[in-house]
């Protein structure tokens, strides 16, 4: 009996910690207008070049889209809003501490070799932290870029920092 009630409590905590929404509900949500806006684009030019198949021909998954945001929101929130408004599939891993984007528009990490995946830049800079750690400022320009070479093909060469 003790074990059973512990299981029930665990299940309640697990379900209570998740927000479950139907597809219509999810895509029907709109952000409150705050006047703050960022530009966001999602580009997979490198994957198109790498894959060379007829299924993925358009490098621009999202081209120069403007989304609104609330003060304190992050790059992750902007991506969520943009994907919600344009009904683009995406998948992330992680929690409030660090979020990692595994795939956008059915294009996943490792789909184009073992050095491939999604990276992002804010105003041309590539922050080396999770996308939910970077706060948005009005007028920021966010680019989500697909790399096939650990960032070297999108202007973000990976340099290993030696440990002291």
């Amino acid at each position, binding site marked *: 009996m003790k074990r059973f009630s512990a299981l029930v409590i665990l299940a309640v905590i697990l379900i209570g910690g998740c927000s479950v929404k139907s*597809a219509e509900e999810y895509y029907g949500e709109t952000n409150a207008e705050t006047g703050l806006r960022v530009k966001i684009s999602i580009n997979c030019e490198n994957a198109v070049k790498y894959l060379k198949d007829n299924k993925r021909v358009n490098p621009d998954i999202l081209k120069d889209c403007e989304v609104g945001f609330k003060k304190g929101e992050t790059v992750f929130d902007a991506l969520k809003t943009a994907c919600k408004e344009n009904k683009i599939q995406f998948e992330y891993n992680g929690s409030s501490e660090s979020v990692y984007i595994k*795939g956008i528009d*059915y294009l996943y990490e490792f789909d184009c070799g073992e050095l491939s995946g999604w990276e992002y830049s804010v105003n041309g800079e590539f922050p080396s932290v999770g996308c939910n750690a970077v706060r948005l400022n009005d007028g920021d320009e966010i680019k989500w870029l697909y790399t096939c070479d650990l960032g070297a093909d999108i202007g973000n060469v990976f340099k290993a920092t030696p440990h002291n």
Partner: protein
Amino acid sequence: MNTFRNLHPVTLLLYFSFVTVFSVFNFNPVYLCFSLLGAALYFASVKGVFVMLKSMAGYFIMLLAVAALNPLFSHNGATALFFINDNRVTLEAFCFGAALGLAIASALCWFSCIGEVFDSEKLLYLFGRASPKLAAVISLSLRLVPGIFKSFKEIHSAQSSFSSNQGRVRRFLSSFSAVITQSLENSIITADSMNARGFALKKRTRFSRFRFTAYDAGFSAFFVLLGTFICVGWFSFEFYPVISIGRLNALNIMSVVLFAVMSLTPFAYEVKEGVKWKISLSKI
């Protein structure tokens, strides 16, 4: 009565490695359904329908569990059913989970058939020449676990009947320690016994009843031919982002038909031999 398991071990090894490889490295539900069907029917003809249905019930529960869990870990797919914390839960992930469950179920089912077909004599025959040590290890370890369980059961029932005032855990522990002691003793006896039978000798001959006849050769050739044509016409089944089969041509359909023939071969063999047996019974 002649049965499928009486074929030559090499032929059987060839057959079972084909079907298990096709079931394990494959998420195409069209092939997997035939694979599971063939394995289940053969298992039923060996162990009886009731045993088969019982294990099928277990596989079905596992299949449902895998199908239900996969969408929680994979969010790929175009058909969003609902959203959990901004990650979509998709129909495609559910279907992929079901196919995965089907693959596991058919592989398990083939492996239980293998367990019925390959006894230690066949294993020793197959692997004994290449590596006598490996064959010895395989047959020893196959015997080890059931042996330990058996001796544990005996010791535990004896312990339970003469010391009822001990707690359950204490009784279990003392039986356990007795089993460990006994198996240590057994290992020394086994080593002595192996030495006495000339395990370490360089020149040793072995007798086995198996003879590779033209019949076995015919079956082997049949399996190799089937395997080749199945591979030639193999078609892929895409789950992500939408479930789709490419345009099918005659080769693909032939591949599926041949795969069905291959998976149903053991069952058909048993049925044929059963009918032959019935007919040849004396009617006096």
